[in-house]
């Protein structure tokens, strides 16, 4: 099993890494405004090369303006390194890389689109009856009670899987030179088949749930005009969001919502996962 970890690209690249980590992830997964500059990336990649640490550039969804900036970042990395991995959250960037034979393209967590709502674990468990039985009124006037019914095995499989895990999709991706996909360590567990030549990276502990185009302001107000150039953007905002009755705590980091789950899947050794990516450090904690 390979171990990688996220680093904050604003560091100078000399920060200590765990001994078993020989690969770092850097960039930004959800916002093109928060990608490193060419200069920052150039400096960092030289330092990491000296330390014999491999680089995986993580990129978000991209507008035409954003994708042009990512082309420059890739050129910069290729001027320093022999091989570079690029995690693509955007079909356009993925297409650019496969058409031009550049780098090693990887399908991101945003494209693998797991269902990451932590409440899905409630669907799996025969719930203890709630303290108060939940009642609803039917349109025909009947007072009804809600009762739990267990999911079918197909539904369980759906919630634990990803749409990527289909024969024709994986065959297509492999035929285009793509061999890896990133996934989150979701609370409901993971079920994926082993397909020759195809593997997954498991991100632990932060599970990515939902992404916004822009951040709310510092007061978490969504009704103020978005300002991507405000000073708060570059601070890497992290705020706890508490949803009553949710089985986990959420936090907003920049323009995305996450929850945290440290426990690895019980069936990890049976999964086609050959890389664990620790995404703990990047959150400015």
């Amino acid at each position, binding site marked *: 099993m390979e171990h990688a970890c996220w680093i904050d690209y604003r560091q100078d690249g000399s920060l200590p890494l765990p001994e078993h980590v020989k690969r770092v992830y850097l960039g930004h997964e959800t916002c093109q405004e928060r990608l490193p500059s060419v200069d920052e990336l150039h400096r960092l990649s030289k330092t990491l090369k000296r330390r014999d640490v491999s680089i995986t550039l993580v990129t978000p969804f991209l*507008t035409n303006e954003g994708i042009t900036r990512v082309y420059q970042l890739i050129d910069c990395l290729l001027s320093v390194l022999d091989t570079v991995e690029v995690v693509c959250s955007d079909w*356009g960037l993925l297409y650019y890389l496969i058409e031009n034979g550049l780098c090693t393209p990887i399908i991101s967590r945003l494209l693998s689109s797991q269902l990451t709502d932590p409440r899905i674990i409630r669907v799996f468990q025969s719930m203890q009856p709630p303290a108060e039985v939940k009642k609803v009124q039917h349109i025909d006037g009947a007072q009804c009670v809600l009762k739990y019914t267990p*999911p079918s095995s197909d539904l369980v499989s759906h919630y634990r899987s990803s749409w990527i895990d289909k024969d024709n999709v994986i065959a297509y991706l492999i035929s285009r030179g793509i061999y890896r996909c990133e996934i989150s360590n979701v609370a409901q567990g993971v079920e994926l088949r082993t397909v020759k030549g195809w593997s997954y990276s498991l991100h632990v502990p932060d599970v990515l749930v939902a992404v916004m185009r822009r951040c709310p302001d510092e007061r978490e107000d969504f009704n103020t005009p978005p300002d991507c150039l405000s000073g708060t953007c570059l601070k890497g905002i992290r705020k706890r969001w508490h949803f009553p009755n949710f089985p986990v705590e959420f936090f907003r980091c920049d323009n995305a919502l996450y929850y945290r789950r440290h426990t690895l899947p019980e069936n990890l050794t049976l999964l086609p996962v050959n890389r664990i990516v620790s995404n703990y450090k990047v959150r400015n904690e």
Partner: protein
Amino acid sequence: MSKRIGDARIVAPVCSLDDALGSIEAGADELYCGVMFDDWIERFGEADLISRRQGRYSHISSKDELQGIVNLTMDAGKKIGLTLNVQYCRSQYNLVLDLIRMWEDMGGHYVIVSDIGILLELQGMHSGLIKHLSLMAGVFNSMSVAFFREFNISRVVLPRDLTVEEMKSIHSASGDMEFECLVINQKCQFIDSMCGFHHNLTLSDDMVVDTQYNIVPGCVEPVIYTHDPMYEGHGCKLCYETKDGKVHHIYNNDFLYPHCAACLLAELCDAGVSFFKIAGRAYPTDIIVRSIRFIKKACSILTSHKHPPPASVAMDIQQLYSQTFDIPCDNTRCYYLMA
């Protein structure tokens, strides 16, 4: 007079024969719908796993009604699309492919999809259905358009999160691809294609539901079975609390205060958008009909002026919004930013 806005087409959602009749009468040029039949519900429940809408009520649930809607649409000389716009796992695959075959046999015109596996299958089965790429595919740049062109996509539904300038930039580098965007109702803070929340049926004690119930021996009251009796609602509709104890709400009541892009229709046309989509499958028929008429009227106001229209035209459209929805136009409800 703006020439292109006169060519723009309105695409409206339908969930029943009544919706289809109302939408066609109101002036919709194309219709779209989803299906959720009993065999699907038995295996996968009523969450948004067949299209990005939960519940039987957001879909057409009988084949006869579906055929009736297709026939009605064809008789009216319009087109209708089937929304299969989420991504499917292996156990759902064959059911979805069967639906596509059924849709083609019924005379449906196009499918709205985002799953590359489905697109590959459509190529393999030599389907004559036209393929539209859903906003669930998340096309934010022209290189993504080029990628999906390889799957013979003829139209791209653009994400609700782009600015008009960004749409223009995509269109200008995308040749003859058709572009569609949402222009009224429903806009979430989360990007459609990047939301991992579970959208199930919300069954709460402050609302009347029409979900099927069962009379169970030994139970005094009728029972509604659900996979999650505690389900609180969509992630985007919930209140949350921050560390300082403040309670916030992500969602705005779109039902009564629809998001709207009517003032920007001319700019959207300039940006290459030719199809204006009405959001809101499962909205009451009268809201859909009002939305179609409103967008149609806004188009006629814009076509009656030289392009670019004077500022007074935006005010006329804002007034029309107030009259139509009985609330003042409010710039926090604008669908798109210009840049």
